[in-house]
């Protein structure tokens, strides 16, 4: 694997790789006032940051906190449904949902936050809130991934062969992840299926075309670029006039290897479970990618809730437990934050009445998140919900606080400013002195 920091490697490769980010790339061809962001507005990066990468397990739709990390067996059947026998973990006094037995054995590695709150029950606003730490206002702010791609990506020494912000496998899509930062910090969504025999990352791995044919059709393409040859090169036209051959040679070798899961032992692939989960994320972390989102869909369970839990939670349990164990055994967990959570939790009281017939609705007043690694202390619990999991009983944690804690562990100053292409003053997170709700950093579970 390629080392993350190779300071003298500012080559054409690097220039090309920036493009793989789906970024606006290069100079903006004489478009004044556009998206090129001044680098000097980077917040002071603290020297001794612990974490280098984040794996965000995005529970798209909002997972039920009662059935995962905040079980309430004493609340009775109206609240627990059939899932009323939580299990002990390898941490004294910490119980989690009964469908998570493998995660129960890894509890010493993660912290459970049971008092997340923002009070919003609409997907799109809650998604924005949880990933920006902000209430909607006149600007669309970038999500955590784009901010980390800005401060830990190509502008700040990242030299990886793949984009600094990668989504497995489809973009989350609730809002423009980059907000006003612009295309340069957009995630690269891989497409494809990591569980397939060959993970066909769109644009990186072409299926069914032999190397020989690849080469000869690229020569054909070059010979047919009549217009490109007739056009004098300018900054405007140059990106269209590059040799496809060069792009291939520069990009392929390495990016390809990273996505090639066949390099992993069959046993390990089975341990993760053959799903879109986890193993690919670990490989990207090894490569030094600062932010990886596993966009894990299917948690918006208004109907058939318990059937879905029975099907999906074991899959999640296996994938996430294997990820924590694998990261830990390779010594990667210390510098990798794993962040599990969705836009909100789900209504503690089961909706047995039609049309739901045993579903759970949206619940933003109180929900759970889980963080591990990168300086977060495992085997801990932050906050408490009330007896039914309806409201926060102790130590409310806002999305802002969680994000600020993640930034801090990454060495990004949460009080810092974000460059704004229109020159508007914008901060990473809403300042407390301007009324943002905050219970402060999660110092109790942070090692620094």
């Amino acid at each position, binding site marked *: 694997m390629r080392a993350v920091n190779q300071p003298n490697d500012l080559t054409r490769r690097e220039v090309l790789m920036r493009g793989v980010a789906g970024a606006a790339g290069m100079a903006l061809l004489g478009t004044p006032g*556009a998206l090129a962001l001044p680098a000097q507005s980077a917040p002071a990066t603290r020297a001794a940051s612990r974490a280098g990468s984040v794996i965000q397990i995005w529970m798209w739709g909002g997972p039920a906190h009662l059935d995962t990390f905040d079980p309430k067996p004493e609340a009775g059947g109206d609240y627990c449904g059939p899932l009323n026998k939580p299990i002990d973990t390898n941490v004294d006094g910490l119980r989690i949902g009964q469908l998570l037995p493998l995660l129960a054995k890894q509890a010493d590695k993660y912290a459970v936050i049971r008092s997340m709150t923002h009070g919003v029950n609409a997907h*799109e606003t809650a998604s924005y809130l949880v990933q920006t730490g902000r209430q909607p206002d006149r600007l*669309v702010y970038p999500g955590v991934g784009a901010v980390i791609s800005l401060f830990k990506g190509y502008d700040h020494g990242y030299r990886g062969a793949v984009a600094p912000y990668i989504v497995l496998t489809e973009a989350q*899509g609730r809002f*423009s992840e980059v907000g006003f930062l612009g295309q340069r910090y957009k995630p690269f969504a891989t497409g494809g299926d990591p569980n397939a025999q060959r993970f066909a990352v769109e644009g990186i791995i072409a299926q069914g075309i032999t190397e020989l044919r690849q080469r*000869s059709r690229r020569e*054909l393409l070059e010979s047919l670029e*009549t217009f490109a040859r007739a056009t004098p090169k300018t900054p405007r036209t140059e*990106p269209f006039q590059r040799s496809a051959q060069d792009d291939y040679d520069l990009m392929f070798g390495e990016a390809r290897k990273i996505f090639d899961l066949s390099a992993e032992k069959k046993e390990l692939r089975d341990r993760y479970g053959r799903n879109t989960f986890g193993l690919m994320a670990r490989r990207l972390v090894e490569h030094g990618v600062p932010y990886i989102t596993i966009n894990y869909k299917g948690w918006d369970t208004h109907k058939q809730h318990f059937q879905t839990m029975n099907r999906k939670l074991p899959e999640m349990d296996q994938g996430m437990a294997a990820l924590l164990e694998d990261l830990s055994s390779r010594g990667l967990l210390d510098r990798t934050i794993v962040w599990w959570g969705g836009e909100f939790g789900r209504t503690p009281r089961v909706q047995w009445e039609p049309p739901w017939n045993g579903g759970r609705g949206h619940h933003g007043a109180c929900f759970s998140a889980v963080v591990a690694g990168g300086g977060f202390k495992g085997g801990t619990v932050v906050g408490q919900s009330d007896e039914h999991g309806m409201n926060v009983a102790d130590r409310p944690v806002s999305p802002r606080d969680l994000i600020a804690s993640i930034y801090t562990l990454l060495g990004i100053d949460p009080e810092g400013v974000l460059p704004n292409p229109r020159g508007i003053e914008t901060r990473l997170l809403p300042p407390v002195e301007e009324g943002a709700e905050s219970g402060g950093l999660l110092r109790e579970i942070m090692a620094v």
Partner: protein
Amino acid sequence: MNSTAWIACIALVMLCGLPRTSAQAVRPFEQDDWPIPANIVVEQVLAGLREAGLAPARPCSDEVFIRRVFLDVIGAVPSAAEAVKFLEDKSPNKRAALIDSLLERSEFADYWAMKWCDLLRVKAEFPINLWPNAVQAYHRWIRDAVARNMPYDQFARELLTSSGSNFRVGPVNFYRAVQGRTPAAIAGGVALTFMGTRFENWPPEKRSAMEFFFSRVAFKSTAEWKEEIVHLDPNPVATCDAVFPDGSTVHVNPGDDPRRIFADWLIAADNPWFARAAVNRIWAWLLGRGIVHEPDDFRPDNPPSTERLLACLESELLKAKYDLRHVYRLILNSRTYQQSSIPVKANDKAEALFAHYLVRRLDPEVLIDAICTVLGSTERYTSVIPEPFTVIPEGERAVALADGSISSPFLDMFGRPARDTGLWSERNNQPTDAQRLYLLNSSHIQRKIESSRRVQEILASSGRDRRKVVRAVYLAILSRGPTDAEVTAASKYYDNKDLNGKAALDDLVWSLINTMEFTCRH
């Protein structure tokens, strides 16, 4: 020719900045002589070039013209049959006739509605949150206004003064499509949309003066899910003198609707922003760059690159009583629009003064539609949001999608605007390597080529005649016949390969789709 005529000729040549540096027209992209007369637009542009000591580019060829005008006017590539018909047409005014016919096509309304919808922020989801029903109503109204060529002053007035249900009265969504919905947020949206200026650059007192006009915009919900009534707040304002952005004042009585007062000021012929911003935007949409650039950044320290051109277009719009198609025609029939994209001398100044047509990558929607058209295939578009989950019927063109929240990975990767703010810079056609690799190498594109109906048809109709196949592929994909060198290269590919004929043809198609000539307006 007598000597006076000679002198006049020489003077004319000098006036036009000739002689040129490049001796010959570049085939098949340029031609030697102008097939159209000069008009008032090119006169303004040439005057600007002359002052800067720059020469204009040559006339573009018919092959370039038909592709360009299709892409710019209806957002689509011509079919092979349309290309052949135009190229073989011998009538002297065929370019003007083509422009007229394109302006009447339904795709014109689809394409220009898409542009207006970027500006008017037509999007169901966060942060605009119009929701699907309202998006449909809003989009339908906009598209219809484009199709009927509603005068631009009326267009603006209806957007600014309508009241009613967001499901039934399309234009009321203008006020809903603003993040925040405060008078300040609305005033900012109005300034950007109709005045081409950025509110945050205004002095605070000027901002708050403008906010007043939107202080009575009110919203109330109904029993219907996501229905909302936009109306005038019944609480009257106090009698006062309000100040317009140009500093003039107006007396407002308690019963007045300040929105109307503002709209009347805005669309008046002597408004310093309204018509200028509109023609500048249309110019930028057609030519790739505003005379004031970016087109939503009018301010004293960002002057037009050529004032006389902007003034000319403004007065033409006013003379035509806000008939936008008059301005389209004027621009499209100008030598400036019809010049080659190959510059005589390439530099920033030449771009800013429109010395040549500006090459730029196709919009994501136009690009995927073009790929679908040449291959005879379709795409699927869905909303990622399950409430209510929307699947667009197979075969819908991306250009015609109403809702900015309905998308595909392709559109996202190629820089479709988020429609969060209406800013010009949201639509990002800057090429990236990820996009290039995607076109070169993705299974999505490869599958589309391998299963292409159109490629099958070409094989079936042209059989073993290789020249015929190559010509048919060129006409379908690049709207022109191949050059001799291209025929030779393509034939060689067939001969040398271990590939069967279909695979070789697929590779030819793949190559042409990946050329700069295909992916760019040029």
